[in-house]
């Protein structure tokens, strides 16, 4: 499959501000930064779903936001469809955006409460295409139908919709410009079980019908297994493991992935639980441990883990960053 989107050593650092940051800088001798994304590389092929998983604070949403330029990368490169995005002017970047859309986590909060559904779905068409009013209207109705919303909902406002319907509007809006890649940032985490299943099936159906690619960001590992063809695991700003979905879930190599999978409560009382757990909590992205970032919490940590970790292929197509593999 051809490469659609590639991230190469992407970094997003946020400088700390205010008196506390100033005092800290005085003590440490250098300004403090939050290293939210600290050298992330991965690629998404045409037509595939890459799952990006990790706990809150690992930087997965910041990666998504950098992709759609809601934050500026500090370093590294983003290539989309052969063109480098990082150096583009806003004007040139906006030419790419119809092909690169995003769906956010909170379905209701990402809609404008003062616009009817129809207007919101037409908005990307207004911005990115030369379609006239009638054509925009027709296209909006077509995508609404495609996500399972009847035309009768087109004139409603967000407060008249349920959470599941709101998320369908968000998906319709992302779909309106016929994108090639949709970044889905926890699209189902705010939904109830029954709605979640339906949104997941809808996403998969749309992907197959249009040959879409997804970057599917989630902490819900079961959903990721269902949707993703490949999965990348993020911890404290870096990718620690990457493999085909079945390979990663059946044979996790990195201790972090193993602990993450062990913590998922399986909906099956007979399921055997792996007792593998990490100690403590995720360190602050201001004071990232040197060497392997997991070593402060890893039960397997050795002195060598303080050395820089190589990211290498542990099985065909299966990469992990751990000294002990």
């Amino acid at each position, binding site marked *: 499959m051809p490469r659609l989107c590639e991230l190469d050593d992407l970094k997003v650092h946020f400088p700390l501000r205010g008196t506390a940051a100033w005092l800290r800088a005085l003590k440490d001798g250098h300004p403090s930064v939050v290293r939210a994304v600290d050298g992330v590389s991965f690629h998404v092929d045409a037509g595939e779903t890459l799952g990006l998983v990790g706990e809150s604070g690992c930087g997965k949403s910041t990666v998504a936001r950098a992709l759609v330029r809601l934050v500026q990368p500090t370093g590294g490169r983003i290539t989309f469809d052969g063109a480098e995005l990082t150096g583009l002017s806003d004007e040139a970047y906006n030419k790419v955006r119809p092909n690169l859309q995003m769906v956010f986590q909170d379905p209701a909060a990402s809609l404008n409460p003062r616009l009817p559904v129809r207007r919101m779905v037409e908005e990307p068409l207004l911005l990115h295409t030369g379609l006239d009013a009638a054509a925009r209207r027709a296209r909006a109705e077509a995508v609404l139908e495609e996500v399972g919303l009847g035309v009768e909902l087109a004139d409603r406002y967000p407060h008249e919709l349920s959470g599941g319907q709101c998320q369908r509007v968000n998906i319709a809006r992302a779909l309106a410009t016929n994108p090639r890649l949709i970044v889905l940032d926890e699209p189902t985490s705010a939904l109830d079980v029954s709605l979640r299943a339906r949104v997941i099936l809808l996403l998969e159906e749309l992907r197959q019908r249009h040959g879409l690619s997804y970057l599917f960001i989630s902490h819900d590992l079961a959903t990721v297994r269902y949707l993703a063809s490949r999965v990348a695991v993020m911890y404290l700003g870096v990718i620690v493991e990457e493999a085909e979905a079945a390979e990663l*879930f059946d044979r996790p190599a990195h201790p972090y992935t193993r602990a993450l999978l062990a913590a998922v409560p399986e909906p099956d009382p007979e399921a055997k639980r792996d007792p593998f757990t990490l100690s403590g909590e995720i360190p602050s992205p201001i004071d990232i441990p040197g060497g392997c970032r997991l070593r402060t919490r890893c039960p397997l940590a050795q002195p060598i883990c303080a050395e820089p970790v190589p990211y290498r292929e542990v099985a065909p197509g299966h990469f992990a960053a751990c000294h002990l593999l």
Partner: protein
Amino acid sequence: MTAAAPVIEVRDVSVRFATDYGDVHAVDGASFAVRQGEILGLVGESGSGKSVTATAILGLIRRPGRLAHGSIVLGGRELTTLGQEELQKIRGVEVAMISQTPRTALNPLITVGRQVARLFTIHAGLGKSEARRRAIEMLALVGIPEPERRARQYAHQFSGGMCQRVMIAMALATSPRLLIADEPTTGLDVSTAARILDLLRELGARTGASILLITHDLGVVAQTCHRVAVMHAGQVVEVAPVRALFAHPAHPYTRALVHSIPRTDRAIAMEPIPGAVPSLLNVAPGCRYAGRCPWAEDRCRREKPGMTEIAPDHFAACFAVEDGRAAPV
């Protein structure tokens, strides 16, 4: 476990909320019991009446809501007829609760140690230094590292998981008979959530407290509970031991629920539940799942099915299961 006496019995409880458009029947004839030392899971989607049921147990239904019907018996004592003053002596002492948002349940202006110590002063009448000592013991019990130092800190200095541990410490401080845990791990990361559930299980076993665990997550239920009560649109539709519920779900809603969730240990086909949760405003009599159920017939829309025992200790409220049309899986 089957022989254990119930700590609390909820019998035919109905809760209604008056609105300008009519009554919202949030809970409709819910019955279940939590037995001595067990963890009973109360599962359902949002709006199924799980939290309202918990609120009713605590006697905290406020206008425009009212307990329309039913009885709640805690350790042989009827709670629904008690006055607020008497309920005050039960809440927090015999029945304690931890919520979904531990951070907002803690007072941001008082140190964590003082908040826990207060319980010992109020409920056990202990002096200041003794209460403080017990508070630090409780914090250590729920696995807070360096409890002496942490006791002097404020809620904002605690992570979400640590706040929930403090809530558990406060809930268990008075050795309650029943702990109501309302979505205790929603909003926490998976690894933190797993540790909170381990803690609840362990403390439940050690202190003998019974736990009513309210959740929408069937994974949490499978890994934590002994028995499960399933709620749909305000009605309890099935009550069963956890293994039986997952191996042989009987009620059509439970079956659909079990088949609508993906798993991480193997790839499965996922089937979403048909239809949507019905409106609870001015509801028709009968089974509220009828509008979504593949086995529904006229009778289901007219009459409300009662709970029948379909296997030992396994109850379901469904005519189709009763007369064998929906053969149990």
